[in-house]
């Protein structure tokens, strides 16, 4: 762990998560959603969190702004945003971080917007409360924010209700709200999963533009490797609450080291001609049951390279190449 952290943490990191552990209270059976997680985001960097059900990727993103479900608890670890401790921040500090420092976009644009409020009002509310702007100035900024995210006729659209917009436009409004207060970090949790693929492409292009124009750092959570690889600089692959591999995007695609990552990459169907397609390689078994993980590596039951020694693996990330870390000690080649 020290190895991974010291090579990737600098004092100027925008966000650093160290040793994060999130559990559901041990009344019935202790369920650990995140085990000892370490992650950093540099200013302007886009980090992807990819994984399937139960991987803990959404929990990780939510931990950053302490938006966990009421039954979950952070039992260990430290999260620092711009040097400030997030986990022990009081309510005022936390509010400030959420308002000005970190913007959030969730998956479902249909329920994230208030259906009975005009979208302009929803944005100006964010601006007035969090930046203390006057109504007139906030309204101007709201129109600007809508234009910025590519909503046509923003001056008119400001008065629309959410149901009058398409799914893609609603998601753009979410981005407008999240970025209106000029945050330094954006948390995007499956922002395009509910959208058509053509709309998704436009939103991803928007995300890219926002990053380039404002130097916004991003944590992008997705189950879709394609989305991650098209938008992120580095990616952390998660399984059963652990990061099992962490590398620049190019290396993950071409030189994945961890058996889970390899399995995942090869099980994605791609657009290939029929004569070149065959059976997809698959990962045997089912997604993990967090309430009964085996000792050592949680991927062992499904891993084609499993050995008896895997039950003693402690899941620390070790470097296999420049900025490329994996938790599997046996797959390094």
């Amino acid at each position, binding site marked *: 762990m020290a190895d991974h952290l010291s090579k990737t943490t600098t004092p100027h990191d925008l966000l650093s998560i160290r040793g994060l552990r999130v559990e559901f209270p041990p009344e019935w059976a202790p369920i650990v959603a995140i085990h000892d997680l370490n992650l950093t985001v540099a200013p302007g960097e886009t980090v992807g969190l990819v994984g399937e059900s139960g991987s803990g990727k959404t929990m990780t993103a939510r931990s950053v702004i302490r938006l966990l479900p009421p039954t979950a608890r952070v039992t260990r670890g430290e999260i620092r945003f711009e040097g400030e401790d997030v986990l022990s921040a009081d309510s005022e500090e936390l509010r400030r971080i959420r308002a000005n420092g970190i913007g959030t976009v969730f998956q479902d644009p249909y329920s994230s917007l208030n259906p009975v409020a005009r979208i302009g009002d929803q944005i100006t509310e964010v601006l007035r409360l969090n930046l203390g702007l006057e109504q007139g100035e906030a309204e101007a900024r709201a129109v600007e924010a809508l234009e910025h995210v590519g909503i046509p006729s923003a001056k008119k659209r400001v008065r629309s209700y959410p149901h009058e917009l398409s799914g893609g436009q609603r998601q753009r409004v979410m981005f407008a709200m999240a970025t209106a207060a000029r945050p330094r970090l954006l948390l995007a949790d*499956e922002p395009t999963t509910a*959208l058509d693929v053509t709309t998704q492409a436009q939103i991803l292009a928007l995300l890219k533009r926002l990053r380039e124009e404002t130097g916004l750092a991003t944590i992008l959570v997705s*189950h879709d490797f394609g989305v991650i690889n098209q938008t992120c600089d580095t990616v952390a692959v998660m399984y059963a609450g652990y990061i099992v591999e962490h590398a620049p995007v190019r290396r993950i695609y071409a030189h994945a080291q961890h058996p889970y990552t390899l399995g995942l990459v090869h099980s994605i169907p791609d657009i290939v001609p029929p004569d070149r397609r065959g059976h997809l390689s698959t990962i045997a078994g089912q997604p993990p*049951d967090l309430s009964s993980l085996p000792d050592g590596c949680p991927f062992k039951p499904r891993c084609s390279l499993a050995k008896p020694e895997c039950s003693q693996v402690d899941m620390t990330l070790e470097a296999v190449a420049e900025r490329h870390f994996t938790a599997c000690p046996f797959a390094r080649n």
Partner: protein
Amino acid sequence: MATLPMSPTLRRIRLSHLFRPANLSAAVGATILLVLVAAAVLAPLIARYPPNHIDILHALQPPSWAHPMGTDHVGRDVFSRVLYAIRLDIVVVLFVTYFPLPFGILIGTVAGYFGGPTDAVISRIVDVDIAFPFLVLVIAVVAIMGPGLSGAIVGIMVGGWAMYARLARGEMLVLREKQFMLATKAMGYSHSRSIIRHALPNLVRSSVVFSASDVVINLLVLAGLSYLGLGVQPPTPELGAIVASGQPYLLTAWWIATLPGLVLVIIGVAVSMAGDAVGDRWGGSSG
């Protein structure tokens, strides 16, 4: 467009935490009900006196060891009367609530399933029945059938079935669009199979949850009718009737009217508490 499945472990956790706050009131409610049912069943054994045993010499006695709830104006032991009254009330109330329930659910389900003219006709009938003030409807039936327990029973049932039909119809309209119901059509299953085997088991929950409050309402209506002299006829003990018989003596022999009334309240509260717990567990959409 793709939604992610929630990990089965997360879902289990949520349910168990939901269950916990309701535990206490559910336990209390259930216990009280058990005690009441036991009292009703064991009435012949517990009651010291036959409920209609008149003993003028000991009329209007305050509560004592011999008569835990005192005696009424003709010397009958109020406690014994109350025990037999609980028996009658519980049996009758359960019957009038749960006998029409399956019919109401079936009618509502058929309306929701077929839609169109079938639904229109059934819904209008249901609407009329619900719109009628319940008590007025019951009294009207009693007026036709004559005062007495059978009139009260029929009257309450006539007024009560429609709510279940409406609940079931609403749920059916939602259920109809669910993919497993579409699947029954795609599999070529008959309408009756789709309705009875597939729809109904998923529709009963909301009606059962509602029936808890229905039981309480019906109990009060029954007691009210008997109080008015339109339900159970004297000398049959029924909680409302006993309250009525104690009314002229409210200032002097308060126990005759108030203690059975208290029992009524306790039954109602217990049913509500137990009903809430069931509602918390089962509430919300079906399935």
